[in-house]
């Protein structure tokens, strides 16, 4: 552990000399050693100078609360800044959350948050249950809980009418010591039981709305111990119920949600020797490799179990190891203790190249940005190297002792997800198939032969309840082939689809290797004689296989069917969407001027046409031809 004073001097030097990656890496190190209020203030002081040299994801966060929460805010901002999320916070007035929710002109909505956190204490929402439970009749207690649940319904629906922000709701804690002591546990409807019912009702209420998520507050407290969590002195003197030591824990828990909402990691790249197992594949006999149920192999088994859980969460796995490939693969294939086998990995770099190079290659092979990679390696030198040369990669800090590896991995905030779509679960299989496809592309023969051999079928369908979550997810996750990179929540997608002139379509691609799932989104808006393409995106999984052209052909056919004269498209450049830059030009659209960075492109349907490539079988789901007739779920949406 480097002394904090020395570390700060090094950070100052790095900042003075403009060595931004170094300053950032050392600030992170200082933060991990001591994630405290003082360190947070120091991080934010450095952030002023570092800010313009990082790519930050902005996030406007509203906090609605029933207790003093202010001291958590600087800690959250510092932790988020080090995770490249730039949080702007508005804290609502004490116990003003009901008005804030219900009044469309409230400061909450004026702030237009991306995320709102609702942190209320049980004692504030159902004071009767918290303080007077012993004297309450069962009927009265029940009524109090039901009323509270009804309130949440009311608040959530008011919020959804006024904002499409994500909402994170703390669940309700039980008292550490029940009012009636151990007697309370003898009935399902005791104080603890009723608070569980309140939480159950909260779950049901949240499930009725888009993007309302729960935070298990009781579970969070129990992780650190309820008696450590509470601070009676601060509570009685300043209405802050949380101890100084646990404030950073709450900030970290919130950060999990911001990660899941903003910058999800897509792939984990792991080292092998002394990370997945103890020992060296190239030097030790198979029997000498430490991996299994007995210590010390049990520590590595735990790491593999945690990695396997991430795999099931939809995180892609890859290997970067300095080894001779056959020797490493022998352990992976043959060692009886291995939980992870070759089939779990989507990309392998087992060679003597620098890891920085391997990471770049893996990102290219998986068609994702290097900023979507996480890196796990027991060697602090390799970790440092990656941090300095690829500051965008999320490097997982590990303790020296492998006993702590599993916990470090499991407690990492970067892999959090709030939803797993069917596509996520299928993804790894699809990437493996992709590897086989790439190998096919390397076979001799023309490109057209390759396209034909894929036997692609593109299925375009109007938005339906089953595709809504995936469509919204694609607008958030697709960076490369995305013409306008507009991010929409499911709620916003619904709004668009229900608006006059707008159409929202999803595109599924199947080929002879399997079903790629929904990988494309089209949003168009018809205005007078022009069809304008609001959104056209395609997951990187299927780029470069002419599916894009098929989608464009579909758009122009639809426009022609409605007797329109023009199709207009926009290209809005981002850091990542170069693959889409030439798209309209290649399809004979005319350059039609610029607006800021964006270029406008126009196709005159009377002069040009776009046809679907002959090797793609395009299929449009039958939908009502009468355009006035909306699908039922949209009609329901518009009505309620």
């Amino acid at each position, binding site marked *: 552990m480097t002394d904090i004073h020395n570390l700060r001097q090094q950070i100052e030097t790095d900042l003075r000399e403009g060595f931004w990656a170094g300053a950032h890496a050392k600030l992170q190190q200082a933060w991990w050693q001591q994630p405290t*209020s003082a360190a947070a203030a120091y991080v934010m002081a450095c952030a002023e100078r570092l800010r313009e040299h990082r790519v930050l994801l902005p996030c406007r966060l509203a906090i609605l609360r029933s207790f003093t929460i202010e001291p958590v805010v600087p800690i959250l901002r510092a932790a988020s800044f080090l995770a490249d999320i730039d949080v702007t916070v508005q804290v609502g007035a004490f116990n003003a959350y009901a008005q804030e929710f219900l009044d469309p002109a409230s400061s909450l909505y004026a702030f237009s948050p991306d995320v709102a956190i609702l942190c209320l204490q049980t004692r504030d929402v159902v004071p009767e249950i918290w303080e007077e439970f012993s004297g309450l009749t069962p009927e009265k207690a029940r009524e109090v809980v039901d009323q509270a649940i009804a309130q949440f319904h009311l608040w959530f629906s008011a919020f959804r009418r006024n904002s499409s922000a994500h909402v994170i709701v703390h669940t309700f804690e039980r008292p550490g010591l029940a009012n009636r002591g151990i007697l309370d546990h003898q009935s399902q409807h005791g104080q603890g039981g009723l608070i569980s019912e309140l939480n159950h009702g909260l779950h049901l209420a949240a499930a009725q709305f888009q993007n309302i998520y729960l935070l298990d507050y009781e579970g969070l407290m129990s992780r650190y111990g309820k008696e450590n969590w509470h601070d009676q002195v601060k509570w009685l003197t300043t209405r802050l119920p949380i101890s100084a030591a646990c404030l950073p824990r709450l900030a970290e828990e919130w950060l999990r949600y911001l990660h899941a909402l903003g910058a999800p990691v897509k792939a984990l790249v792991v080292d092998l020797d002394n990370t997945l197992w103890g020992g060296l594949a190239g030097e030790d006999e198979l029997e000498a490799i430490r991996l299994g149920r007995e210590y010390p192999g049990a520590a590595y088994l735990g790491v593999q179990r945690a990695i396997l859980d991430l795999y099931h969460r939809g995180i892609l796995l890859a290997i970067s190891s300095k080894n001779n490939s056959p020797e490493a693969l022998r352990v992976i294939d043959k060692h009886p203790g291995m939980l992870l086998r070759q089939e779990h990995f989507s990309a392998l770099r087992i060679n003597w190249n620098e890891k920085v190079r391997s990471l770049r290659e893996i990102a290219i092979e998986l068609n994702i940005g290097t900023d979507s990679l996480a890196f796990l390696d027991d060697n602090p030198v390799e970790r440092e190297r990656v941090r300095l040369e690829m500051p965008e990669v999320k490097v997982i800090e590990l303790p020296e002792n492998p006993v702590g590896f599993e916990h470090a991995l499991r407690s990492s905030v970067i892999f959090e997800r709030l939803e797993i779509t069917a596509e996520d679960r299928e993804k790894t299989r699809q990437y493996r198939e992709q590897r086989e496809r790439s190998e096919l592309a390397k076979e001799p023969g023309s490109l057209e032969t390759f396209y034909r051999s894929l036997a692609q079928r593109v299925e375009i369908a109007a938005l339906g309840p089953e595709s809504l979550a995936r469509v919204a997810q694609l607008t958030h996750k697709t960076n490369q082939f995305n013409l306008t990179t507009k991010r929409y929540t499911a709620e916003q997608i619904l709004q668009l689809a229900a608006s006059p002139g707008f159409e929202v379509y999803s595109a599924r691609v199947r080929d002879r290797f399997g079903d790629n799932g929904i990988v494309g989104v089209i949003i168009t808006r018809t205005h007078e004689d022009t069809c304008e393409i609001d959104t056209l995106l395609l997951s990187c999984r299927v780029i470069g296989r002419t599916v894009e052209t098929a989608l464009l052909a579909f758009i122009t056919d639809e426009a022609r069917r409605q007797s329109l004269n023009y199709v207009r498209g926009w290209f809005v450049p981002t850091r990542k969407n170069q693959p889409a830059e030439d798209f309209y030009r290649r399809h004979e659209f005319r350059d039609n001027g610029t607006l800021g960075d964006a270029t406008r492109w126009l196709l005159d349907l009377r002069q040009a046409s776009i046809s679907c490539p002959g090797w793609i079988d395009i299929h449009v789901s039958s939908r009502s031809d009468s355009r006035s007739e909306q699908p039922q779920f949209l009609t329901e949406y518009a009505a309620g």
Partner: protein
Amino acid sequence: MLLADRVRRVAADILETAPEDLHSDSSADTVGTWDSLRHLSLVLALEQEFEIEFTPEEIEELLSIGLVQTVVEEKLTAKKLTTGKQAHESQLSLRPV
């Protein structure tokens, strides 16, 4: 690092000033950023740094950097003295009454 310097560093972070600019008699009256919310942050930061917990009365005493240094030092000394004693007492308390 000396205890007094650690206290000054923590206070300087929270009050957004340089440690050199804080002296024993620096207080809410002389440091512009030292308001009531900042005072709470300072209390919390000291508790985190030194793994101590102040009583309400002690929190009211923390009126200047010099007083903060005194109170923190007293608490750390008391903590050292009682650690052994507490362990002994907790063993006793496990006896059936």
